[in-house]
């Protein structure tokens, strides 16, 4: 898409000259760099509970954020009104982070290189509502039909279409149209008079509605949620203490997101507050581990044609054969560290200052067959599905919570195990990876990453891996 075709040019009549004048206002007090981030976001969501479509909502929000950088300082202001006076006022407020004469008076905005990772002609948000209502009804029916012990189901379908425009004082002009859709299903199971157990599943991406009609149907997610709920009915108490842990492929890649990814975001390392600070070139994982953050995978939830600072996203090697290779950089950190942006500058919305973030974070496949990995464990835990995770960047300690796992006894999967948190230390945990499977899988597309109060969609992935030592937080 070109600037002239964007909603901002077509509907709000914003011209290149306007953008240049706002940038000039932003730099009027002597700032070194300024950027404008225009956003027009349309969202919709539909939910079903007890077989009733109880809620359907749609809405629109729009605004522009103006950022000015002067040395290490950032001034930021935003407006939810796209009239020229209000944008100019926001630019003037942000400008005052600097104090001095204007240093730049000419801007040459150029539409640069960008990917086309999600060529979705009609975004789900633009389709008829009735088609999308049908998705939650189908999920509800399929979850209930799975097993007569399923007594409750809920499904939520949500999508949005974000249209963005970034203009920067160093000449970048980027527009993008970012569709995103997600379906989540939860199912509750119980034996007669027994304790309920919950299972959940979901997925999506930067896809069109056909994805849910042909590839990952409501029935697929519903059956998966119901299967997990039923499986957990027989769960026994989780063990406590250090043991061998095998992670299944896909969503358990959240390990990498927490153990490694956050600690490699350049802002923490620039400030020297990450457990990974100053460790480039050092061994932080076993040589079986190569970890990548790649914002360029087609249709993935964490992918972007351009990041939220207008830079094309790229494939970044974080750890190569166990050795720490690089950080995730945004504009500010890369300028201060005299390095290059890695296309990792992201923000939740026009009301937020961008910072280095992950996109799709995963480990490359190894050579072991997944069955051989499980067979090699005399006693341990096999974790298939997880809830959320969290990390303390400074100490490097991280957790992630297993929502479906099984005991491994004598190389075989045996009893299902209740929810338990796994805890480890980022620069240490991956040193104990002793087998990596040949079955790399990316997650289904449900991840949301939170940092300093800002949420952005992300993806993760991992092959089956064996970790010789990790602390499991059960009770038994």
């Amino acid at each position: 898409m070109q600037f002239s075709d964007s909603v901002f040019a077509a509907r709000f009549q914003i011209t290149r000259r306007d953008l240049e004048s706002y940038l000039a206002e932003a730099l009027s007090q002597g700032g070194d760099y300024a950027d404008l981030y225009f956003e027009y976001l349309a969202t919709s969501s539909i939910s079903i509970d007890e077989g009733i479509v109880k809620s359907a909502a749609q809405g629109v929000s729009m605004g522009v954020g103006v950022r000015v950088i002067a040395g290490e300082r950032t001034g930021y202001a935003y407006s939810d009104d796209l009239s020229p006076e209000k944008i100019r006022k926001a630019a003037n407020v942000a400008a005052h982070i600097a104090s001095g004469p204007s240093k730049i008076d000419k801007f040459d905005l150029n539409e640069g290189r960008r990917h086309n990772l999600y060529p979705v002609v009609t975004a789900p948000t633009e389709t008829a509502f009735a088609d999308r209502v049908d998705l939650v009804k189908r999920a509800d029916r399929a979850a209930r039909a799975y097993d007569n012990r399923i007594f409750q189901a809920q499904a939520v379908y949500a999508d949005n279409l974000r249209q963005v425009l970034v203009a920067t004082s160093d000449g970048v002009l980027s527009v993008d149209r970012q569709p995103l859709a997600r379906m989540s299903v939860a199912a509750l199971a119980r034996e007669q008079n027994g304790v309920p157990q919950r299972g959940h599943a979901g997925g999506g991406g930067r896809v069109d509605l056909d994805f849910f009609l042909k590839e990952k149907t409501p029935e697929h997610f519903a059956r998966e949620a119901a299967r997990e709920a039923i499986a957990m009915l027989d769960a026994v108490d989780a063990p406590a203490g250090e043991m061998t842990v095998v992670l299944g492929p896909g969503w358990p890649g959240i390990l990498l997101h927490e153990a490694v990814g956050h600690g490699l975001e350049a802002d923490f390392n620039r400030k020297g507050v990450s457990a990974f600070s100053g460790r480039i070139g050092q061994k932080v994982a076993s040589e079986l581990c190569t970890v990548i953050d790649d914002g360029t995978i087609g249709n993935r939830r964490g992918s972007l044609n351009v990041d939220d600072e207008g830079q094309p996203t790229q494939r970044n090697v974080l750890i190569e054969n166990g050795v720490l290779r690089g950080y995730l950089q945004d504009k500010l950190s890369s300028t201060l560290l005299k390095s290059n942006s890695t296309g990792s500058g992201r923000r939740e919305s026009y009301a937020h200052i961008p910072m280095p973030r992950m996109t799709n974070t995963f480990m490359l496949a190894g050579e072991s067959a997944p069955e051989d990995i499980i067979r090699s464990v005399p006693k341990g835990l096999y974790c298939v599905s997880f809830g959320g995770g969290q990390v303390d960047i400074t100490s490097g300690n991280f957790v992630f919570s297993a929502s479906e796992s099984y005991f491994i006894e004598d190389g075989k999967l045996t009893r299902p195990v209740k929810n338990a948190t796994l805890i480890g230390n980022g620069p240490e945990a991956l040193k104990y990876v002793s087998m990596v499977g040949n079955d790399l899988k990316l997650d289904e597309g449900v991840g949301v990453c939170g940092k300093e109060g800002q949420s952005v969609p992300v993806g993760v992935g991992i092959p089956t891996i064996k970790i010789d030592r990790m602390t499991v937080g059960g009770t038994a």
Partner: protein
Amino acid sequence: MNGNLLELAAGIVKRAQAAGATDAECTIAEGDEFSANIRMREVENLKEAGSRGAGLRILKGKRTGSSYTSDLSPEGIDHLLKSAIELADITTDDPDAGLPNAAELGSIGGDLQLYSADIEGLDTALKIDTARRAEDAALSADPRIANSEGASFDTHVGRHIFANSRGFAGEYRSSYCGFSCVPVARDGESMERDYWESSSRRFDKLESPESVGRKAAARALRRLNAVKVETQRVPVVFEPRTARSLLDSLFEAVHGMLIYRHESFLAGKLGEKVASDRVTIVDDATLPGLFGSSPFDDEGVPSRRTVVMDQGVLKSYLLNTYAAKKLGLKTTGNASRGLSGNAGIGHGNFYLEPGVQTPEQIIAAIPNGFYVTELIGMGVNIVTGDYSRGAAGLWIRNGELAFAVSEVTIAANLKDMLMGIDAVGNDLEFRSSISAPTLMIGEMTVGGK
């Protein structure tokens, strides 16, 4: 546009009715935010802006539709109305959908002290200086505090408007200011951070920046050189900051929506003894000046005080109109919503009543135990009560805080944890809308080596 927002909300409700809605409710929120970040004694970020938005929910018979917009221009409002009406045609009949009865609507009188004019007039230099003084106090506290993630000062001033088709129209203003400080302590290879903060609805109620900075530094320093202990079962003491997160889980466990869906381990337990005698939990949105207070809830029902647990007996769930109807009960005035969708359930000031022992007395009685100062992760399953989270803190040896511990887990089931609350401290402070004093649980599993 600068028209009267209360009239705008009431007007949107009338137009929705004229367009075919049998009932309608409209929420409008506007606010101005400011934040300043300082790091290593220099300004890092300054942010300033205002925003507003409107949300509409309509009923056509027993079907609902919702919409929201940040565009309050006449065209934006036209679109808001059209969007909600069109959606009511695609949802299904919900026999329990509906608004509160007119007799249930209203607003509590008196001054709740939710708004203080002093925050809007604050000088930017003073706000920056407050954060800078806090960080400076932390950096000066000890040579091992050589780095910092910074300090910040934030303010928010807002207005909340709600109107519905049963005749309710109300509004209130609110203000917030607060600052926090995150020092980083280092000793050899060991690096730890911690934070402390102070916040209030009034600037003159904030704690001194120096005391906040010193407290943050002391917290980071005591975490240095932490060890991982052996896996064992011991008494666990939650300091107020971590005890508060237990109350977060208990709020979810009495959340009316989770109750009617059987998604809480407390479903069906009304009137039963579910916790030790020492546990009395109250939700009170009528306490002046606190962050959890408001004159009415997000359905226009007056705020109130609800005893949730009385000496261990479960007395009430927290309900909005919908959950109340599902359970055959009355709303407790706990409806909560953003701009979009149906009302959910929130809390007012949700707290556990203090006991008589000082935290020192509680610790002194423990020969071998764990004093938890930080919890990470989301390992709480409200459906089953299974609780397993990452923890850090200090080990208790012979009644004293002996050494720092990290990279361990604590686990139990919330049902047993509630019954096992053997001591409640006298140190309740209302620092946020969920508050708790120091709590001691007789036995939990600490997962370590």
